[in-house]
């Protein structure tokens, strides 16, 4: 599959000091729905905003549907439907006004499609944005982004303000529209259970680096959970298999390990199957440990 979103050695530094992202290499294949997961401050929003041309790279390069968003922002925006982190609708305008406004701003914007999505979500077109809940505003944002008919959809944590039902409706609409149009979507989120149902790829970003970039099926198949400490897991599976250790909700230690690609017949598998949430948390724990080790080494040097 052709990559529609690419980052090669991408780095972004703010105010000449803090690196939000550094050395990010990432490709999002066309036709996929990719989840971008990471803790707060990991640079998810920065990366998404850079792909639409809202941020300039400090180093490295990006590609959005084959164009460099820094050199050709117009081209990048034309290829992207964007749903920002916080709803950004005009408080005093009705939803119908937003649809008209989008129609005046963007050639090819499908006003009837946008109105259809909004009505399907039971949001009145005559309602002002200020009268809608945060979840409804996010849904209107999605309807506007979908009606651009852009081949790439960038969704920057749109689920954060949604209740579980609204979240489900949002994802359902997004998946249906993306699949029907053969588009590509990149969704950044903290809510891993929803991602598992909606996305087919998973990218984990931690402290400015890519920690994991696999299909959801591969991520589940290639990892196991050992219910014990890191030392116990290393003793059982070897140091190379170890990914990261973290506590279960009740406090008992869990360790994420890599599962061998091929297991000889009759050999018992290590630990138990990992959930997607455990895969993500394990890699985030590993990323954090690497960052601490790097900082310690730097301080010692």
């Amino acid at each position, binding site marked *: 599959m052709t990559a529609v979103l690419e980052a090669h050695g991408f780095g972004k530094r703010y105010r000449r000091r803090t690196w939000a992202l550094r050395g990010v290499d990432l490709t999002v294949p066309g036709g996929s729905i990719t989840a971008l997961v990471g803790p707060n401050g990991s640079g998810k929003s920065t990366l998404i905003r850079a792909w639409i041309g*809202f941020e300039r790279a400090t180093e490295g390069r990006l590609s959005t549907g084959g164009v460099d968003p820094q050199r050709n922002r117009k081209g990048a925006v034309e290829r992207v439907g*964007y749903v920002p982190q916080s709803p*950004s*609708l005009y408080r*005093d*305008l009705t939803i119908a006004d937003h649809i008209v*406004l989008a129609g005046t*701003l963007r050639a090819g914007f499908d006003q009837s499609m946008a109105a259809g999505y909004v009505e399907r979500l039971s949001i009145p077109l005559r309602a002002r944005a200020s009268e809608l809940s945060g979840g409804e505003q996010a849904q209107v944002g999605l309807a506007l*982004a979908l009606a651009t008919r852009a081949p790439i959809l960038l969704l920057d944590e749109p689920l954060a303000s949604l209740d579980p039902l609204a979240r489900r409706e949002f994802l359902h609409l997004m998946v249906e529209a993306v699949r029907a149009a053969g588009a590509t979507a990149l969704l950044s989120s903290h809510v891993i259970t929803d991602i598992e149902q909606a996305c087919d790829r998973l990218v984990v970003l931690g402290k400015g680096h890519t920690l994991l970039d696999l299909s959801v099926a591969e991520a589940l198949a290639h990892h196991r959970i050992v219910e014990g400490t890191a030392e116990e897991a290393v003793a059982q599976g070897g140091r190379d298999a170890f990914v990261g250790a973290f506590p279960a909700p009740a406090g008992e230690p869990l360790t994420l390990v890599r599962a061998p690609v091929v297991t000889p017949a009759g050999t018992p598998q290590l630990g138990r199957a990992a959930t997607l949430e455990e895969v993500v948390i394990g890699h985030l724990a590993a990323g954090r440990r690497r960052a601490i080790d790097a900082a310690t080494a730097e301080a010692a040097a």
Partner: protein
Amino acid sequence: MTLRIASLRIAALTFRIQRFEMILVLGATILSVLVSALVISWIRTAGYDRCMTDENLSLTGFCHSAVGDWLFRIARLSGSIVPVFPIVAGLLIGGPVVARELESGTARLAWSLSPSRLRWFVHRAVPALLLAVVAGVAIGLTADAILHVSEPSLDIDQSFAGFRQRGLLIGVQALLIAAIALAIGSILGRAIPTFVLALILFGGIGIAVDKVESQLLTNEALTTDSFQWNDAAMFLESRIRMPDGQVLTWQQMSEIHPDILNNGYDPEVYRDVVLYIPGSRYHEIEGREALALTTIAGLFVLVAGMTVVRRRPR
């Protein structure tokens, strides 16, 4: 036709996005124009305007009646808002156009929808700037009418009375401050600091323009030693004409010939002269200043457009 409908839609949406400020400015303009028109018409119909020209009538009880007094008082009050109006209207209309969009995050939505930010900027800024100009010109023309009724003997087209506080220049001043606020708002991305900074900058530009204009006018001024004080001409300064025909300022006199100033001088030898601009040049000077201010406003709009194209949304 389609383009016209689209432009009207955009103008209507711009109006609704900035509903509060637009209603405030439009409301104040319409109210001021209506009240002034009513008062002027009443003054004329009742004949109170003759009190200003007819010396015999001005001493009568008719001219000192409470009604006449109040009508002129209202007219003066309406005229007194003129110097403040372009500043307030320009700030209110121009400041929020980009600043509030950045502040509230709506720029993210708009800029992600519009491949051309310049197009978005033109859609948002042009109706706002037009409104500032139209409201300012309406107020300026109202001020013209008030001046005319207050001083019927004055030919307002040939007089510097109320210069910069009436006519076309009010509209241009509103345009200038709206453009300054637009540019600062697009740089700062916050409404309140934009208002403050735009006000300071407008003051600075006003002083600079005044200095340049004064210098130009001084160079172009007529010199006379028989100046009759009147409302039509613009008095610039008085100087001294030396016996050799050289015209010196008081400052130059005190530096070059302190003895003459200290010991007193014969006014027949050292003539006091006045530099002035005749009232007949009113529209020419007004037009020149309007052109200069419009050019400066255009530069600020350019800065705003370039900033919008280059900056990142919040």
